């Protein structure tokens, strides 16, 4: 089986500053894969590089057998790569409902009614808030909306950038349970980056560790959890 996503030796720059220095990542269909690493390691840059914004300077990004390295961002999205990006990026002056409609714009709302019910079952809070403006939601609600909006695109690959950031532990648990459920029941492929290494590794089939724009370690989720170096760097001193 060929991987769904293959990031090959990618280097990304902001001006002259190298943010990614030769990253290799592979995600098989049906997998949950995570990338853990400290603040500023380049995790979000990797997510955005996959979506072509910014584009990789060298190396290539292959999705479903197709080279998408030089494709414009909106065309990459049309291949069904959906991202819940860093900072959540909810449209603040659109209602929750409209934000979800934006997520479904690829199919011109063809499956909208069917899919929105699924999202509302997954995140009942969004149903209560559907006519509220996105900018007025709490952080946790925005996170749910951001993930819900990405799911509305019927993605082949779901990219999640720090789904746990700034959320109460109970909400993190709920969101991670929802991701697991989607993966098990619908075979959704997920690639997430996280600072919350413990929760992310527990959820994932495989994981990578990123330090200063480079992948330093990779392995099974449980395997990395047990690894002394990972434990020392990311897990000891409490689960953030």
């Amino acid at each position, binding site marked *: 089986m060929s991987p769904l996503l293959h990031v090959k030796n990618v280097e990304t720059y902001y001006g002259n500053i190298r943010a990614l220095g030769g990253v290799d990542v592979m995600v098989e269909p049906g997998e949950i894969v995570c990338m853990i690493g400290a603040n500023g390691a380049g995790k979000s840059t990797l997510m955005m590089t996959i*979506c072509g*914004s910014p584009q990789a300077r060298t190396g290539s990004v292959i999705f479903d057998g197709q080279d998408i390295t030089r494709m*414009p*961002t*909106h065309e990459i*999205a*049309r291949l069904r790569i*959906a*991202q819940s*990006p860093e*900072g959540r*990026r909810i*449209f*603040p*002056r*659109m209602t929750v409902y*409209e934000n979800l*409609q*934006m*997520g479904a*714009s*690829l199919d*011109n*709302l063809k499956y909208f009614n069917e899919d929105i019910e699924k999202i509302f079952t997954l995140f009942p809070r969004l149903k209560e808030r559907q006519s509220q403006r996105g*900018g*007025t939601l709490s952080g946790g609600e925005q996170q749910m909306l951001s993930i819900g*909006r990405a799911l509305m*695109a019927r993605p082949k690959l779901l990219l999640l950038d720090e789904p746990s950031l700034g959320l109460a532990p109970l909400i993190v648990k709920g969101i991670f349970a929802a991701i697991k459920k989607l993966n098990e029941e619908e075979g959704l492929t997920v690639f997430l980056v996280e600072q919350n290494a413990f929760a992310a590794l527990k959820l994932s089939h495989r994981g990578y560790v990123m330090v200063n724009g480079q992948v330093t370690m990779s392995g099974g989720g449980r395997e990395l959890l047990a690894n002394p170096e990972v434990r020392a760097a990311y897990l000891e001193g409490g689960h953030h």
Partner: protein
Amino acid sequence: MVYFVQQLVNGLTLGSIYGMIAIGYTMVYGIIGMINFAHGDIFMLGSFAALIVFLLLTSLFAGIPVVLALLVMMIVAMLLAGLWNWTIERIAYRPLRGSFRLAPLITAIGMSIALSNFIQVVQGPRNKPIPPLVNSNFQVLGISISLKQIVIIVVTAVLLTIFWYIVNKTPLGRAQRATEQDRKMAALLGIDVDRTISITFIMGAALAAVAGTMYLMYYGVSVFTDGFIPGVKAFTAAVLGGIGSLPGAVLGGILIGLIESLWSAYFSIAYKDVATFVILAVVLIFKPTGILGRPEVEKV
């Protein structure tokens, strides 16, 4: 009282025209954060397109019904102005997107000068009159309302309704609002941002062209400098209403129309522009974002 109501009607007519132009300023500002200073000249161009179509129609088909003539003028003007504005965005603004903020602004001023000079060269510097298209006058309770005024107000109302519907209820409008609020996120959701921006320029130009046609019908004359004063007034309207806000643009336009005609009626016609700008200054002191503008604070 009758005199006052009469001035209200006059002001509303003028305000409708300003409002239609102001929408183009405010939409472009909303979506890419620049003031398209060439927009007033797009309005003037639309008025000239309507004028040329009028001359062609009357010389080719004498006795063509006025309604049909106006409709054809309006549609051709909309298409041409849309094409012009699309071209301007494509060749003059898009390459500068992402450079420092003043660059597109200066280019827009350059474009404005280029357009009005172009019309001056190809159409001549003199006023171009047309015979009155619509003549009837109605007397309602002592107030004289011309059919022209009714046409302008009705056309404005209809177009604004269509426009409101597009922006608020269609996928295109959603894409425009999404692009306005977060361009990068819109792209991540599969929205072709460049295309959405182009369409916004075309839509704004089309409205300005309708305003140009109405202006030509109302005053019966076009001249290459027409882009400047009405353009600045409409820009003022957009700022007064709150730049970036569509209802604000219409409200600002109508307010400026009313201020102008009431001031001219009761005080001095020579100082009407002064009055307009004084009120703008006063509003901006107390409400810097304009009447319906939103404060730039968002909950994160």
